[in-house]
Structures are given as structure tokens and as C-alpha cells.
């Protein structure tokens, strides 16, 4: 115990020292603030995601940087708290020559800094969360909900449930419960689920769960009484494991549950034990091993620079998601360098352009050692999301396995129309004239 404590304190001291090292970055380094959360309610997700991002930074640096420009970073603990997140953003935005980009991994923080981004000229990525209508780069030039948004996910969910039922038309008359975290996050898919309810004819039953979701007996008793065909679980943190276990207790088949991608990590299923077997969720990463993860094991963890304390978490859902995010950030910076000068440190404005011109096709994925790890992505001013494709994965009791071999898309045309309408409304409220920013 004492040894463990000493070990922990030593690790903390080394981490603090490395933070200082990062803080003292030279002008030739590309600085990225890390608004992370490693303690508190959502620490498991935060430590995995930001651990993955930092592991990828270390890999890029070990390989010589981006055309010789090394990545530097500094962490600031947000505890997933919006006000702390905004404070971290303000503290780090001008450090070391200025922030290249930010990724708060929290809808609350993302909303908190949204209006500051165009003023500070710092791009923000919100991969798989945040405002879905921010995909319109003409209204939200500094926000990038890369790969896919909640609205596309919700459409993808209905597509998958339709496929399971034998076709979208077979959903008519079916009951679908939307069990959601009672917050803006949980309510985000309402417009899509309600629009599809009208067009496809299923019955949507919305059941909220009060934060943090440690008690769900009453919700699952209601579900049992409603006897739905499917349950969509739109949860985060402890709510997910509790939902899975309470479903088992109430005899609801886990195969009929479909979780949001924030309910689809090892941290959600392992605590639920055997109850999680057969449980399915959405994802934008194909579970498995990839050359880039092997390279991280060899060059980063082999050199003793790995960020995860528990090496069993390498390649886990959150770790892979962090690697994916960092890979796309680096692609954005690389794009910017190709346009504004190779081997130079880029400004936030230049990186914004780089993120707006990401093109990671299958060929580029292979070069990055990440073929099929995430869907191919091509961003533009009109489409800051760049993909919208999703997959479904199942927990087999030990690991996640892909259910859908190919990437699937829901009603993308409907979602794009909704994005256009919602972003136009936002532009009118904020008196923004939609336009593509010049490169």
C-alpha cells in the first residue's frame, strides 16, 4: 500500500515534470492544449481518450514530428465541468505561441467556448458529440463535429433497427423506448427520432433518467410494462452499467438494447459483468487491432512514454477514439503546412483551413496504419463532419466485435436538411451571414 502510494506519487511527480517540460515548449513546436478530465465522474472516459491522443502525439514526435515540427501540449483538468473547462481554455489559449485547436470532450464545455472560438481564431473539434448543426461550416467555421454527429447516429440507429426487423417499413407499429440521460446530451437526438417516428410509423417512448443515473428501477419497471421491441440507451458514465444490469434484472434481452457510442466502451460493460453479454452499441471505430496501435506499443510504451497506467487499456474503445481524434488533428495541421509552409508552426486560423480540407480515404488510412479503424472522411466548408457513417458493435462478454462489417448511414438527406434549417436559425439569432472563410 505504502509502496503503491509512493509509486503513485512518483508517477504524479514525473507527470508534473513532463507537463512543465511541455509548458516550456519552444516556438518551433505546435502547441495543443489538452482540456482533459482524469478525476471525477467521467474520469474513465477522459483518461482513455486523452491518453490515446497523447500517445499519438508521442508517436508523431518519435517519428520526427510533422515535417520536423514537434507537438507540445499541456493538460488542464476540467473534471468534465463546463466552468472549469472554460477557465482551462482561457488559461491555455495564448500559451506557447497560441493554441492550435481545442477538443473538450464535453458538450457543456463545447457550448461554453463556442462563441469565443471565432474571436480567438481557434478551431474546436467535437468528434461524436456537441451541436449536430455545427456540421455547417458556413455558420460554424471554427467548429468541427468530425466523422459523425448525434443526429447521424440517431438516423443510423433507426436504420440498424430497421435492418434487424427486416426492413425500415417493418418498424411500423413497433415500440422503441429512448432511455436517455436527462440533459441536453440526452435530448439532442429528439428531432431525428421524432421525424423518423412520423415517417416510419413506429411509436417512440421517451423515458428520462435523472443524473447521474445510479438508480433506474422505476425506469425499467416502466419499460417492462411498455414491453417495447427495442430500447435505445442514450447514456454516459455510471448510467450505462446500471442500465445494463437493471435490464438484466428485469429480464429485458440485452440484444434488444442499442446504446449510443458513449455507452459502448469497456468501462460500461466490464462493471456490468455477464449482464452485458449480447449488448449492442453504435461506434465510429471498428473494434480490433491496427498497425498504428502496434507502433504505439512499440515506440511509445516501449520507450516508457505511454500515457495509460494500465497497459491492458491500449486499443480499448476510448483509447482508440483518442488516437483517431489526434490523427485527424495532425492531418489538419499537415494540410495547413502543405498550403502555408512545410516545417512551420501553424496558427489556429491556418489549422482551421487544414481541418476544413481533411481527406482521409482508404489509401491514406493504410498509410496511417489505420485502415478501416474509422470511416473515410472528407471535410469541406459545407460539411465539417465529413462522413456521417457509423457501425454497430456487440459485447461478447470479453471484447467488442463489429456487428455490421460495412459502415452504415441513416437518412443522411433528412439529417442534412435538418442541419441546414437549424444552423440557419442559429445564424439568424446570432446575426451571422453564412459564408465560407477564405483560405
Amino acid at each position, binding site marked *: *500500500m505504502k509502496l*503503491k*502510494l509512493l509509486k*503513485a*506519487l512518483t508517477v*504524479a511527480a514525473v507527470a508534473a515534470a513532463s507537463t512543465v517540460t511541455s509548458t516550456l515548449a519552444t516556438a518551433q513546436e505546435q502547441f495543443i492544449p489538452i482540456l482533459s478530465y*482524469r*478525476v*471525477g*465522474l467521467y*474520469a*474513465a472516459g477522459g*483518461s482513455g481518450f486523452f491518453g490515446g491522443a497523447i500517445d499519438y502525439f508521442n508517436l508523431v514526435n518519435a517519428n520526427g514530428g510533422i515535417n520536423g515540427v514537434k507537438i507540445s501540449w499541456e493538460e488542464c483538468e476540467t473534471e468534465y465541468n463546463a466552468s472549469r473547462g472554460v477557465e482551462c481554455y482561457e488559461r491555455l489559449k495564448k500559451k506557447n505561441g497560441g493554441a492550435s485547436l481545442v477538443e473538450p470532450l464535453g458538450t457543456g464545455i463545447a457550448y461554453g467556448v463556442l462563441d469565443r472560438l471565432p474571436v480567438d481564431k481557434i478551431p474546436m473539434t467535437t468528434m461524436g458529440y456537441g451541436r449536430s448543426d455545427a456540421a455547417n461550416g458556413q455558420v460554424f467555421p471554427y467548429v468541427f463535429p468530425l466523422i459523425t454527429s448525434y443526429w447521424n447516429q440517431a438516423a443510423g440507429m433507426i436504420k440498424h433497427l430497421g435492418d434487424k426487423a427486416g426492413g425500415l417499413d417493418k418498424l411500423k407499429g413497433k415500440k422503441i423506448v429512448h432511455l436517455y440521460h*436527462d440533459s441536453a446530451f440526452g435530448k439532442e437526438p429528439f428531432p431525428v427520432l421524432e421525424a423518423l417516428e412520423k415517417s416510419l410509423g413506429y411509436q417512440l417512448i*421517451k*423515458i*428520462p*433518467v*435523472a*443524473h*447521474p443515473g*445510479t*438508480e433506474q*428501477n*422505476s*425506469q425499467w*419497471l*416502466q419499460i*417492462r*410494462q411498455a414491453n417495447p421491441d427495442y430500447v435505445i440507451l442514450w447514456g454516459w*458514465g*455510471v448510467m450505462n*452499467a*446500471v442500465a445494463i*444490469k437493471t435490464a*438484466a*434484472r*428485469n*429480464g429485458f434481452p440485452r440484444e434488444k438494447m442499442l446504446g449510443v457510442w458513449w455507452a459502448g466502451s469497456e*468501462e460500461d460493460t*466490464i*462493471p*456490468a*459483468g455477464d*449482464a452485458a453479454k449480447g449488448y449492442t452499441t453504435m461506434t465510429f471505430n471498428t473494434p480490433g487491432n491496427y498497425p498504428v496501435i502496434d507502433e504505439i506499443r512499440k515506440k511509445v510504451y516501449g520507450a516508457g512514454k505511454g500515457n495509460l*497506467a*494500465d497497459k491492458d*487499456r491500449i486499443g480499448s474503445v476510448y483509447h482508440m477514439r483518442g488516437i483517431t481524434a489526434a490523427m485527424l488533428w495532425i492531418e489538419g495541421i499537415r494540410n495547413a503546412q502543405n498550403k502555408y509552409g512545410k516545417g512551420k508552426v501553424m496558427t489556429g486560423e491556418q489549422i482551421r483551413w487544414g481541418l476544413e480540407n481533411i481527406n482521409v480515404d482508404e489509401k491514406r488510412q493504410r498509410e496511417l496504419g489505420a485502415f478501416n479503424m474509422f470511416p473515410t472522411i472528407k471535410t469541406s466548408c459545407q460539411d465539417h463532419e465529413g462522413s456521417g457513417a457509423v457501425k454497430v458493435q456487440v459485447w461478447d462478454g470479453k471484447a467488442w466485435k463489429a456487428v455490421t462489417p460495412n459502415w452504415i448511414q441513416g437518412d443522411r438527406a433528412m439529417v442534412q436538411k435538418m442541419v441546414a434549417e437549424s444552423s440557419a436559425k442559429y445564424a439568424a439569432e446570432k446575426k451571422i451571414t453564412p459564408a465560407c472563410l477564405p483560405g
Partner: protein
Amino acid sequence: MQFFFEVLIAGLLSGVMYALVALGFVLIFKASGVFNFAQGAMVFFAALTAVGLKEEFNLSLWVAIPLTMVVMIVLGFAIERIVLRPLVNQHDITLFMATIGLTFFLEGLVQLIWGSTVRKLDLGIPDVPIEVVMSKTGMLVSQFDVIAAGICAVMVALLAILFNKTKIGRALRAVADDHQAALSVGIPLQHVWGIVWAVAGIVALVAGLLWGSRNGVQFALTFVALKALPVLIIGGFTSVPGAIVGGLIIGASEKLAEVFIGPYVGGGIEGWFPYVLALLFLLVRPEGLFGEKIIRRI
């Protein structure tokens, strides 16, 4: 009607789990007159330490649990020595503030030692419906919840004996009434406080193991303490039976409210309904159902 009873029973059994956490608060309050803000952190600290010892040192859970009990006893005496002893005779609010500081310290320390990842805890109690009940009544009653209720009953019996039938119990009550008077008649205040914090630590361990087994051992365990607050307001801060009755009232009412009123007001009322109920109790019976009525000369 069957559904109503099913919701009611589920609520009562959840209430027992709340009461288990509330017991820890009652112990500290009885001995020092202070609301221990750190009780939720102690639940988390105890559960994570037990699982951490088991996983990091490859111990059996039944070895890790007694070791954690020792840790909680040491922690209890350390809190008395380092935090409380310098604050003897200080105002209640000073002691309360000290427990707030203690909360952040314990939360940070335990995550520093064992990490912040979610851990699985399997006590070997199946969380499945009891078949006999299901086949005869059609109602789902969890085996885990019933066993948890049994454990809670044993805890209450033991605490009742401690408070009413032992010398330490009498000393506890004397200390709670007046620190200085208790000291003046020779009651070792420090010793009593140390014991009571150690016992509260063991209660936190039992609560942490049961809640951790149900939800996974993670930071959210600190939040179960929030459910204990309305339980205490209703049952009274100084009564062990009050904690149980308060727990049952809160558990049953929040579940019934969520299921039968929730759909008319948008749902999700389980989080705040117990506090509204507690507020109503405060208006009519501020000392709670079983609390001591305090009459002071003005």
C-alpha cells in the same frame, strides 16, 4: 395493482440501500453533532480500496475486505488525530467545513492510489429475480436487494446494541450533547471520536461494497450520499431506526412518483422529488420523525 406493488417493493428495497449510507451520517452526527460531508467520499474510498487490494495484489475478496476494514479503522483514527482534535470546542460549522475539505482529500487520494478507471466488483450475490416470488405473484423482486436488506438489518441491530447497551454508546451520547461537559467528567473525547469515525468507516465499506457490486466501483459512488440527505431529514439526524424508516419512505415515494407522476411532468423527477418531500417534512417536523426535539433557552 400488481404493478403498483412491484414499484412499491422496488422502492422500499432501494430505500434500504439509501439507509445503509445514511447510517454512516447518523453515527458521526450522534457523536459530534456534525454533518459529515465526507461520508460519500468514504464510501468510494472504502470500495475502491477493497477492489484495488484485490486486483493489484491478487488477493481474494474475502481477504481484501478485512484488510480494508483495518484501513478504514486507521483512517478513522487518523481523521480524529489530524482533522478533528485541533477543532475541539470549535463551532459546528467549522467542523462541517473540515469535512468538506476531507471529502476532496479522500476523493483525490484514493484515485491517486488506485486510479480512476471503473472496476467490477462481484460479491457472488446474483442480481436476478427470486423465482418463487415471480412464479407465485408475477412480480420481479431482486435477490440482491433482499440480501442487501438483510445485511442492513444486521447492521442496524449491531449499531443499536453499540449505542444502547455499551459503555461506548453512552459515552457517544454524552459527547454529542456537549464536548466540554463530556471531557470534564472524564470521557476521553478523542478516543470516542476515533471509534465512531472508525465504525462509520466500516459502515461506509459495507455500503460501498453493496453499491459497488450493483453499479461498478467508480466515482459515482460518492453521489449515493446525496440520496442520504433527504433520508436523514425525514428520519432524523440522530436516530438509527430513523435512518431506516427515512430510507424506506424516500425509496418508495421517489419510485412511485417517478412512475405514476413523472410521465405527466416530463419524467426524471426521481432526482429532486426526495428533496421536495424532505422540505415538506422540515416545515412540519424539523427534527425528523425520530430525531431529538431540541429546546433551547433564549
